[in-house]
């Protein structure tokens, strides 16, 4: 829900009396909505909770000087991203940029209508919507949520303004852009030369790094798109890794059983990109 819609709703719910007085004097954190059976957090409370305990989950934002980050807070809106949700289609105008906190987003290039290939994975280390930082309004890729979780999002206009006014943000974003370029170069070579099981191992490790758990869920379709192979190719590669006791893969539920072994089985791109990004 956008801030303006939420505010309008709040004002309709709290019409008068001591509750309205408390609301007007800024002493209220949340309003109970009988219609939806939920508590609506007021914007200030939501922002405070999003940066709770001074811990900023997104490392790009965390790298900013505190003051610069505080300056962005008014425009950063906490949202929940859900597995399978599309943030942009190729060619679509970018309306928001997203800084994932504990969610992550796949960027996919679409080829020949419905074939897809994942070209990047964006988690708490980065931002979705990089074209906007480069002065490009439209997304060249599909941004698809791969891991459910929270993120902070900012509208395109305020983001452009913030970028123009904040050199530290520029520096962080350009450094991140360089990391992604290096990642893309490596991925191009990887897709061309490395065997599917080794590439699967790499993507599983990248997902693990972003989710920060050895267990996660990825469907066959997702993996097929990630690797640019058919489902049978995914099954073969996953079976291969499972036979080597590196993972267990059952109906989309993946458990990394032997991380060191999986890293050894992965193509070198995993380590190369990881070192570039740190």
């Amino acid at each position: 829900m956008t801030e303006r819609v939420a505010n309008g709703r709040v004002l309709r719910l709290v019409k008068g009396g001591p509750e309205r007085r408390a609301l007007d004097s800024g002493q209220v954190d949340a309003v109970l909505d009988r219609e939806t059976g939920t508590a609506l957090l007021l914007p200030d409370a939501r922002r405070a909770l999003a940066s709770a305990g001074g811990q900023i989950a997104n490392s790009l934002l965390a790298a900013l000087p505190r003051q610069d980050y505080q300056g962005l807070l008014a425009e950063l809106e906490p949202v929940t991203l859900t597995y399978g949700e599309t943030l942009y289609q190729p060619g679509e105008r970018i309306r928001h940029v997203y800084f994932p906190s504990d969610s992550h987003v796949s960027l996919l290039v679409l080829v020949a209508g419905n074939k897809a290939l994942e070209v990047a994975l964006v988690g708490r280390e980065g931002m979705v919507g990089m074209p906007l930082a480069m002065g490009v309004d439209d997304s060249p890729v599909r941004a698809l949520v791969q891991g459910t979780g929270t993120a902070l999002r900012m509208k395109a206009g305020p983001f452009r303004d913030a970028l123009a006014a904040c050199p530290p943000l520029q520096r962080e974003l350009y450094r991140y852009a360089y990391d992604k370029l290096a990642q893309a170069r490596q991925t191009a070579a990887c897709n061309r030369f490395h065997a599917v099981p080794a590439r699967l191992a790499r993507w599983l490790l990248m997902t693990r790094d972003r989710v920060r758990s050895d267990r996660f869920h990825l469907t066959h379709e997702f993996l097929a798109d990630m690797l640019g192979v058919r489902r049978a190719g995914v099954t073969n590669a996953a079976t291969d890794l499972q036979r080597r006791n590196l993972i267990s893969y059952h109906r989309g539920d993946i458990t990394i059983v032997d991380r060191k072994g999986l890293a050894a089985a992965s193509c070198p791109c995993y380590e190369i990109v990881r070192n570039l990004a740190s």
Partner: protein
Amino acid sequence: MRPKKAKIRSSGGTVTAVVVMRLYIADGAPNSVKAVANLEAICKKYLKGSFELEIVDVLEFPQRALAEGVLVTPHLAKLSPSPAAMVVGNLSDRRSLLGALGIHE
């Protein structure tokens, strides 16, 4: 959970009937954090253990809060002794808080 029906001594501002309260908050949100701090300070100073406080997080139990007539948080409900009373906001208004709790300085 019956409050003791003891006589209320009026000297020194102490109340000997057990004050039963429920505070509805949004866990971690700024006004809620203040409300908890303000209430705990008052309880420590004036109620000295003769109180029961339940804290309900409306983010976790919104339905319960709605069922109990809560509209905004923070919301303090004094349940006992009667008369029941309520205060909303961050409870930094000492006078209205003490009044609601039946504490006379």
